[in-house]
């Protein structure tokens, strides 16, 4: 079993009671039930291998197409092995789709959104999980309710607002509406309800710490594993978000997905160029997945137990 990722913190504060590793939440559940599972037979491996190939093949083929030229791409049978032109095509796509600018923009947008989502979700999640206040349940219901509202419903007035603020075609137009996330608040609340012992918060109070201090020195260390997962998931979403950036940004100042539409817009389609662009736009997230894959997987699963 590989579900005990989200490593328990080793540098936990001295106040953490022994035997209470931070973040014992859903993973304890997962581990204790692991014993009953059947072993996979050959058929399961074959089916899973087919699924893995189907998952990965389109990306592999993106790379193949991006590394050949257009005459080779349009031959039958299509090429299945990489050609020699990968770097020249990547360079062309970098220039023609303004990928440099798009990458920087996407990095800023996704970075700021992920940071602020994590910070505000942890603050609100802590309040909902461990603090008592009037209207708590009502407000929490509101948070959950907002998850059901499709963002497209608000897109026309939002566009008008941005025009009025002078933010059309500017990054703040993409950043501000997504600074917080209801899913994030809910995720952190679920995590902290289980991972943060009440006694720890009380101990802080007895020591005379005010709420912000408790948040800073007790909650943040405990929440860090969940925060890093939420950061990565939010980053992926913000990087890939398409509809609103497409509406409010133009080609002079695009994010990566918006820049990619530029490549396919012409009448004569340069397939190798398009695939090189698609590869460029996906590469940063693929690297992130290869490095943090285990964390992202367990994070999505941990968020889902009570989903």
């Amino acid at each position: 079993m590989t579900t005990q990722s989200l490593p328990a913190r080793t540098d936990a504060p001295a106040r953490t009671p022994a035997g209470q590793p931070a973040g014992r939440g859903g993973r304890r559940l997962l581990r204790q039930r692991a014993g009953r599972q059947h072993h996979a037979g050959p058929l399961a491996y074959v089916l899973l291998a087919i699924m893995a190939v189907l998952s990965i093949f389109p990306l592999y083929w993106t790379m193949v197409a991006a590394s050949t030229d257009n005459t080779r791409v349009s031959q039958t049978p299509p090429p299945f092995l990489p050609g020699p032109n990968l770097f020249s095509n990547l360079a062309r796509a970098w220039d023609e789709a303004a990928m440099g600018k798009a990458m920087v923009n996407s990095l800023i947008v996704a970075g700021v959104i992920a940071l602020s989502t994590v910070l505000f979700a942890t603050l609100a999640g802590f309040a909902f999980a461990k603090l008592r206040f009037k209207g708590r349940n009502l407000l929490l219901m509101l948070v959950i309710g907002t998850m059901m509202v499709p963002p497209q419903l608000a897109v026309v007035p939002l566009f008008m607002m941005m025009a009025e603020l002078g933010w059309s075609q500017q990054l703040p137009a993409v950043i501000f509406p997504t600074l917080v996330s209801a899913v994030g608040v809910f995720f952190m609340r679920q995590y902290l309800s289980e991972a943060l012992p009440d006694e720890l918060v009380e101990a802080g109070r007895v020591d005379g710490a005010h709420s912000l201090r408790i948040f800073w020195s007790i909650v943040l260390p405990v929440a860090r594993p969940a925060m890093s997962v939420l950061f990565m998931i939010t980053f992926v979403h913000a990087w890939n978000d398409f509809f609103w950036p497409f509406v409010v940004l133009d080609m002079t100042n695009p994010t990566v997905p918006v820049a990619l539409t530029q490549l396919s817009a012409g009448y004569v389609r340069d397939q190798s160029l398009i695939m090189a662009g698609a590869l460029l736009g996906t590469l940063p997230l693929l690297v992130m997945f290869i490095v943090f894959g285990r964390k992202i997987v367990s994070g999505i699963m941990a968020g889902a137990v009570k989903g």
Partner: protein
Amino acid sequence: MATSTTKARTGEEPPGRTGAAGTARRRGALMHRLDVKGAPYVFVAPFFVVFAAFSFYPLVYTSWISLHDVELATLDVMEWVAFDNYVELWGDSRFWNALQNTITIGVISTVPQLMMALGLAHLLNYRMRASLFFRVASLVPYATSVAAAALVFTMIFERDFGMINWALGTVGIDPVNWEADKWPAQAAISTIVIWRWTGYNALLYLAAMQAIPADRYEAASLDGASRWQQFIHVTVPGIRSTIVFTIVLSTIGATQLFGEPLIFGQGPNGITGGADNQYQTLGLLLYEEGWKNYQMGRSATVAWAMFMLLVLAFVAQRLIKRLRSRTS
């Protein structure tokens, strides 16, 4: 509990003390009470402030705009037209076409996607080597943006040199015109959606499956249930709430479908969803009305239609659930 601690603390204070130390302590207690009472609201405030400004207010404003004529070029000029936009939308064949496409693409992308996710989760739930590899691999499509995924699949589904038609040709099937013909186009677009989201849903199911108590399986196998029967009678009911959750999420996603059909119909036909609007969705129609025909009021009307579709879908789901529980 925070409040009980507070009371205990203030109660412990020796009564009737005077002098500087007492005043300081009383001021400290006041600050403490203010902090305990006020801090939670400060902590949740950022979420609600941003949500109110950039989601709730625009949401309400959408309905107001839908009762007006507003041109994209002159956004501050709003002419009151009452329900004209709604009447026109009702009589517009493009709307009914887009509505129908949204529903059909939604069904043929969501149903197979969730079924495959269920099967995949079941496989991933086995004890095996390389389980982490298989999990990460099934999640890789989720890391791909709509734009990149749609570009790749557009090429794979290309009529003359696309991989799918080549593969069909090797087994003697005539090439399919995936872009121009209605059902092939909708199937191709659904493929993109299915590819991107199956692994994600599978992980949600897997998490829920691992939380099913082992004794239920033991009881079932004592009763002589086969593995398939255990899957149907223990696993599926055990993760029912997660299944409902994913149905809700996918329904919301399907209502808003935009990037996949836009990029699949590359070039000038993108926004109209193909030469005959054969895969124009409500999301595309919303964009076409607002940013191609410059009619923001009508665009807002389409947004409301999308919302109503969503509400109807959930009412229908509820009804089906109630009918089912009554019959069983």
